[in-house]
């Protein structure tokens, strides 16, 4: 992912504010990865990520006059995405069946509370995860690729790798924990 140039983004936002609709394409192009990373990381199962991302950019365009050039456009945009996501999360929580079937209420409430508080930049978490992933041995990466790239179920993975479903489940669990610990460690290092 390219490093963002806030001055260039501000320049294009100013053009949009002056009525140049085409300049908004540049803004969307530069920031769509950041917004998506945020929405993906902060949404619960059942949320239509593409829809939230799209609505966030549309809402930002509609309110573009409210943005003060020279401040932080990414933070401003992520706040809009946060409210879009909050609305959707609240809607899902109100759907009684949703929690009974998929997500514990306590988790959904915690998610909402965090969304109410801040818009953490999940893009850095994405980069840290990529670094941690790169540190895994190829055999571990292959297991993760089957699960996340191919979208295979545990039983499909077991068949592909000629192993038992239980063993695959256990290895996946260990790998995820390993990645979680790696990220937690790196975040702590960054904050020091």
């Amino acid at each position, binding site marked *: *992912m*390219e490093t963002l140039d806030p001055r260039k983004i501000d320049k294009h936002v100013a053009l949009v504010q002056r*009525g*140049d*609709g*085409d300049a*908004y*394409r540049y803004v*969307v*192009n530069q920031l*769509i*990865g950041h917004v*998506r*990373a945020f929405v*993906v*990381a*902060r*949404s*619960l*199962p059942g949320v239509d990520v*593409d829809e939230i*991302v*799209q*609505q966030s*950019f*549309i809402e930002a*365009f*509609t309110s573009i006059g409210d943005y003060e050039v020279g401040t932080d456009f990414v933070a401003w945009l992520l706040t809009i995405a946060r409210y879009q996501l909050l609305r959707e999360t609240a809607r899902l929580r109100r759907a009684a069946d949703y*929690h*009974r079937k*998929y*997500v*514990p*209420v*306590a*988790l959904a409430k*915690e998610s909402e509370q*965090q969304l109410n508080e801040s818009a953490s930049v*999940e893009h850095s*978490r*994405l980069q840290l*995860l*990529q670094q941690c*992933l790169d540190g895994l041995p190829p055999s571990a990466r292959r297991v*993760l*690729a089957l699960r*996340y*790239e*191919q*979208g295979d*179920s*545990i039983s499909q993975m077991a068949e592909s790798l000629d192993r038992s479903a239980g063993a695959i489940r256990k290895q*996946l*669990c260990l790998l*995820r*924990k390993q*990645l*979680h610990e790696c*990220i*937690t460690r790196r975040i702590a290092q960054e904050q020091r």
Partner: protein
Amino acid sequence: MTTNRFDDLMEALLDGGLQSSEVAEFDQLLVSDQALRQEALNRLAEHRLLSLIHQPTDDEVAVEAVMAGLAQSQAHQVESIMASVAPTPRRRQAKRNWLPWVVACAAMLMLVTLVRPFLTAPNDVAGGGSNADDRLEKQTTEVASLLLCQNCEWENRGLLDEGERLAAGPLRMKSGFAVLRFDGGAEVVIQGDAALELLSPGAARVHYGDVVVRAPEEAAGFKVETPASELLDLGTEFSVRVERNGATELDVLDGEVAVRPLAAKVQEPRVLKAGQAVAVDSAKSQPREINRASKRFATLIREARPNSRWELTHAYAGFNYDAGRLPLADSHRGLGWSGPWRERTHAEGFRPDQDLSKSLDIVHGRMNVAWPVPGGRRGMLRMPSGFHVRIRQMRKKIDLSKNGTYYVSFMLRVPAREEVRRQDDFRLTLRSMEDYFGESVTLGLPRHGGPRIQTGLGVGFRGRSPLPEDESIFCVGKILARQNAEDRIKLRVFGETEELESLEPREWDVVSRDLDLSARLDLVVITSAGPGERVFDELRIGPTWRSVVPLIGYEENEE
């Protein structure tokens, strides 16, 4: 114990195996422990980000979707304003109130201001009203397309190319063999010395010459006038010969035709059936039976042996290399290119996670080639799962600001997968090196939904037919660029069981509307996204249907 159970439940949540009773149990576990809730949210976030890393979303499509959504949203907003200020019938009867109209005009102005940048080309915004008038005028006078042209010598229309649109008016051919398709649906073969006048999408006048008309059921009612008679097609195929003195011979090859001498209009037309032939010597004479055995439309096409016209191809890439990894710098084979295949540059959206592969993966025999494309059985490009972009610059630009017809064809195979995801996509985009993110033409073949056309302006068109599953497909795109008229883009996908005809198809899977493009496109960008590999081959870009579609008499391109 609690930690172990937390892990089990967390894993079950991530892999979609959490039962209803476990959801309640997990809830109990989390409700009293804020640290566990935080960890659960973090692990859920990491799980979802892992999916994002392994299945990178296609930013280009996402940006287009945002821009299209924005245009739609703005249009809807203005419609709402218009609806709210539009006078009700009751108000209309009351005293005139200028305020709603001022607001409505303001709303219209807002619509134009807000939506136009997303829906039209930048230079169109600067365009004057006269262009729009010209465009309207020209569009209303075009009545047919030139489908095939073998050794044609035209007398009055300069150099006509296959695929071109034809305006109403005289059409004189000195020699050759041509096929026209009228917009009403009728197809007409013209042979040798002939003079016609294209009257409307459903009518032509033959001054002299030999023509054969094929009008399928939906084109029934096609009318042919000659100096001596008026022939009304009733869903059929018929042959007409008109001498220079106007004498007309009609031979009904299939179905029925109504014939009436021109000077006897009060008279009921005579209906002829298949196998009947008549001569009408002059406008005043009655039809008389004759013996005539004319050739059928299909026979004439077959005898004309319209073969592929590879010599006209602007650009060709057949990936005819040895199997294995081919460094991008060595991928120089093909015709009409300025250089080898390459990755995106920083100005074109380079991403280190997507653009660091420095080679092409060449495979052999990975596609069932159902059409006469021998090159398709040799090397082909494999695009593995993930997000991949390859770019190549053409020597000849596709200039959308001028009149021109362009065809693009390629073969693709997408292995079947049970689960189809939104990001499963393949597309071929024509872009401009000068303005990479400006106007473009995309022929898209997503697994989710039907084939689509996009233009880089937030304007897209989608077909309804799903793509054939687990088989090779042959795709043809047609770009009809016009300087002062609507540009038209079409896309057709052929499955393995579908034959590629000598004439371009009547029906296309996707057809654009209301486009006005002016970019000069010189880059071919192929993009493959999502899980599962794709195999791509035999890319051709040319000015006619026959320059990109394999027909009989095939001769391979020299790479």
